[in-house]
């Protein structure tokens, strides 16, 4: 008997177009299903429908039915489905309730009425399973994005659900961490539905593939752009004059060293991909290169203007019109701002409020806001987080096209993207063992 049955589901968010159209599917106990499709295609909405959050939390027009473990989600509150269903959301930063890791993992167990004597052992077991046992007493505010994603994964695994819904669970994990996370989900014994923009790992582990586009679902072989690609290892020689030279720098936060004696050189005309495990100081090195941090030891030299695009840049938009947001970096020059918007495929979006845009559109807007300045050094921190494969290809093509005029440093955990866009890879290694970091 199927664990979950979706029959003729159509859903429309209040005041928006139809997000799901006549979707039907069955999920068997223990199977792993990959959910692929473009950003905004309806993957997250389908996961929310399976968790009962659609329509209970979001409202909107709902047709059809969703049954999970024999329970009609329209007649049951999402909180009452918790435990049977567990959901890992896209943004780990926005799902943390407590200030310390152990309490965060215990939160769901407490809500489900787990016997008190079992709460801490189950939380510890889940943290150990995701390789985060050493983080148990750390404040969540001090964790890196990848560490936080592991903690959030532990929080849902600790619930031992029958149906595990994972919305881009590996977007901030390094390749080893991503593979381990998918494997863990598989080994949990739950039926797993995992939405991913990096299909390589999930397609290896899944039993079947569903493709969601414009609210419609199809099963079988995904379109070519979503098929796994092999990561290449670019190893070109360092290019000519160095626009950015980082020599033997050291840096730490609150006396915890992150970088020690690290060097990096990025020349004009080349794209360097900065890779390495979570917590190895990639973002710190990128910020030092861009001049956002001052080294505590060693030297950083730059020529010309540097621009830095942070992780999750759609969160950091300040103006009320897209063209004004982009024009900030060029002293309010709206003409250049419109050209930059067109470059990233946002022509016609000039008068839109940045917060009315979809997450993918916001990311492109933020990219336009740094490209418009024509920097000599462009630093992009995880630019493919939450970006679907066709958009990644477009981004890679854009960066390659503009590469000759500047030095480009891309921080990424996406080795396939790194292989496609970069001339060479530079790896960072953790200064401390994970247990000490």
């Amino acid at each position: 008997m199927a664990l979950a049955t979706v029959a003729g589901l159509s859903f429309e968010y209040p005041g928006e177009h139809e997000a799901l159209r006549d979707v039907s599917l069955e999920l068997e106990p223990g199977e792993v299903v990959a959910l692929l499709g473009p950003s905004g295609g309806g993957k997250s909405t389908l996961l929310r429908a399976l968790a009962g959050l659609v329509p209970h939390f979001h409202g909107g027009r709902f047709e059809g039915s969703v049954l999970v473990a024999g329970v009609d989600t329209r007649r049951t509150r999402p909180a009452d489905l918790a435990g049977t269903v567990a959901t890992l959301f896209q943004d780990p930063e926005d799902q943390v309730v407590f200030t310390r890791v152990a309490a965060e993992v215990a939160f769901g167990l407490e809500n489900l009425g787990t016997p008190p004597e079992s709460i801490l052992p189950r939380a510890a077991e889940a943290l150990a399973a995701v390789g985060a046992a050493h983080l148990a007493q750390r404040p969540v505010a001090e964790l890196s994005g990848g560490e936080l994603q592991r903690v959030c994964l532990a929080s849902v695994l600790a619930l031992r659900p029958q149906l595990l819904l994972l919305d881009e669970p590996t977007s901030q994990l390094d390749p080893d961490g991503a593979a381990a996370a998918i494997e863990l989900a598989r080994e949990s014994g739950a039926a797993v539905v995992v939405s991913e923009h990096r299909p390589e790992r999930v397609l290896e582990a899944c039993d079947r593939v569903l493709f969601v586009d414009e609210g419609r679902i199809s099963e079988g072989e995904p379109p070519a752009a979503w098929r796994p690609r092999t990561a290449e290892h670019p190893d070109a020689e360092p290019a000519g004059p160095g626009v950015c030279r980082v020599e033997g720098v050291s840096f730490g936060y609150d006396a915890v060293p992150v970088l020690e004696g690290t060097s990096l050189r990025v020349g004009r005309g080349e794209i360097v991909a900065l890779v390495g495990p979570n917590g190895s100081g990639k973002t710190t090195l990128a910020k030092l290169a861009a001049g956002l941090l001052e080294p505590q030891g060693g030297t950083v030299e730059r020529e010309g203007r540097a621009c830095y695009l942070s992780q999750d840049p759609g969160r950091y938009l300040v103006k009320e019109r897209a063209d004004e947001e982009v024009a900030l970096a060029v002293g309010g020059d709206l003409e250049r701002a419109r050209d930059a918007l067109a470059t990233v495929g946002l022509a016609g979006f000039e008068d839109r409020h940045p917060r009315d845009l979809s997450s993918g559109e916001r990311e492109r807007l933020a990219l336009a806001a740094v490209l418009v300045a024509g920097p000599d050094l462009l630093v992009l921190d995880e630019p493919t987080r939450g970006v679907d494969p066709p958009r990644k290809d477009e981004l890679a093509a854009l960066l390659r096209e503009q590469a000759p005029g500047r030095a480009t440093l891309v921080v990424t955990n996406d080795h396939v993207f790194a292989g496609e866009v970069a001339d060479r890879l530079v790896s960072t290694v953790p200064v401390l063992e994970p247990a000490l970091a």
Partner: protein
Amino acid sequence: MSPAPAALLLAGLAAAALLADRIVSVAAIALVLLLLCLRAPAGRRRLYLFGAIVSGLSVFVLTPFVSNIGFHVIWSGPTVPVLGQLDVTREELRIGLFQGLRLTAVALAFAAYALLLDHDRLVQSARFARRSVLAMALATRLVPTLERDAAGLVEALRGRGVEVTGARGRAQLLSPLLAGSLERALNLAEAMEARGYGRPGGTRTPRPGWSTLDRAALALGALAVAIGALWL
């Protein structure tokens, strides 16, 4: 010390500051709370101390201009429509100082609560009104979260070569900060519901019982209220 008796002790000190009648008593309570706050890391305590001291100073400075008390005039100013003659009397200064210190003491008690207490343990140890305690813990986290978001915004703008300077530059960040907070609050509420928050039959992580120190703190909190009401 467990967070619950520590919170009650701080509440007792704040109540004593509100109940006391003498400036020197309120000043002493404020000083004790200030010393407590100084135990927090410098980077974290800065904003709280700034808020507590500036709000107290504002009350001290503004009170003489918006009240009309006393006969010992120290300074006479012009007559302003609505407010009348602006003059400062010794009595107004005294009342301004007293109310300013009271506000500072209460703000410092909140600062100590926000900076020094383990809010996770406080929520987990709540035997009743757990929702209210959790709501308060989340509200307390708003300050450092807003601080982090503001730092992220400033960094994102610096990354584009735009420096945020002056009061006007910082004021531009208020609207995106508020919008970001609302988005975050919605996402958090959804994540909490998905993890079973609000369903009946919840349990709690076991916690060790109160120590002698915890009981002493609780008694001291109650004593502070009584002394504040009767003798200070």
